[in-house]
């Protein structure tokens, strides 16, 4: 979405315009949901965190005034909420990977919400794609939080690594090194040559 369009939406959203607020949610919901789902590994947590992300965005819209790109702000809120959620879950001793539980235990629910692009593929492509996706999901779950966070931010947001580094408060070199390590580890886990 063009920045001028986003700015106009934000201007209207600041005045609690229901149409603008709905468009903001509808526009960014899929990517925000994808990010928090991948960072928490839980559909339930993703649903809750997506709502919380948008509520926080709207409650603090007044603070967002020429502070750079809206997406960087939106995804920072989402990533921080997901990080807090994972930490809190660990403190409570929930150590099991919810990613597997979601993909195995709740496969029906998860498949029912696959993106339309995947539904349009044929059965064989779906099977092959599904297998690759499953292996990729499993490999992602093996990464540490910081590594997963940076490549998921790059995947779901339209931000550059430089913007992501700023969002995470780390130097660009650190962000790139982290992403490079994460991708190398993913390839290794999936048995793919460099």
């Amino acid at each position, binding site marked *: 979405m063009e920045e001028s369009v986003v700015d106009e939406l934000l201007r209207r959203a600041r005045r609690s315009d229901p149409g603008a*607020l709905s468009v903001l949610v509808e526009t960014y*919901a899929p990517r925000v949901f994808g990010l928090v789902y991948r960072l928490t590994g839980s559909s339930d947590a993703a649903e809750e965190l997506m709502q919380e992300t948008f509520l926080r965005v709207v409650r603090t819209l007044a603070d967002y005034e020429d502070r750079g790109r809206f997406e960087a702000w939106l995804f920072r809120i989402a990533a921080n909420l997901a990080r807090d959620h994972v930490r809190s879950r660990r403190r409570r001793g929930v150590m099991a990977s919810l990613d597997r539980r979601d993909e195995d235990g709740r496969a029906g629910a998860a498949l029912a919400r*696959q993106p339309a692009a*995947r539904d349009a593929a044929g059965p064989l492509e779906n099977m092959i794609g599904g297998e690759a996706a499953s292996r990729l999901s499993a490999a992602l779950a093996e990464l540490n939080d910081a590594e997963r966070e940076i490549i998921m931010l790059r995947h779901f947001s339209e931000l550059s690594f430089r913007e992501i580094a700023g969002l995470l408060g780390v130097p660009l070199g650190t962000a790139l090194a982290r992403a*490079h390590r994460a991708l190398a580890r993913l390839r290794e886990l999936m048995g793919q040559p460099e």
Partner: protein
Amino acid sequence: MNGARRNARFDMNASLKNVELTVERDMVLLRALTTPAPSRELVARVAAAVVADARRRAARRAPWRQIALGAAAVIGLVLALRGGVGRVAAGAVESDSAAFDAWVAAVDDSNRALDEATWVGADRATDGGIEFDRALDGLERSFRIGT
């Protein structure tokens, strides 16, 4: 020294750029990643929650806005009244001043009239006194003649 530092910075930037290009290329690995999309119902529910929250907050802000507007109106009224009273006081002073001027003018007129009256009387008295003096002189002379 500065040249060496500049070259080192250039090398570092170039190497960062190379790493970035490599990482961007490797991100293709995630192309196969599928993530459950939020259902339409969920998106609609979140949108409704956001709109409801914004309305609630706007409604909560409304009494404060009314109070603020009321306070501003009261302050405006007080300032206007104070300005008005000032103007009234100034008007009163102006009015008093005019009355005073009128009073002074009247006193002046009165004094002038009194002076005129007095001086006329005095003149007359003087004239009368001269007459009286003349009469006494005449009487004295007649006594002196008689003696």
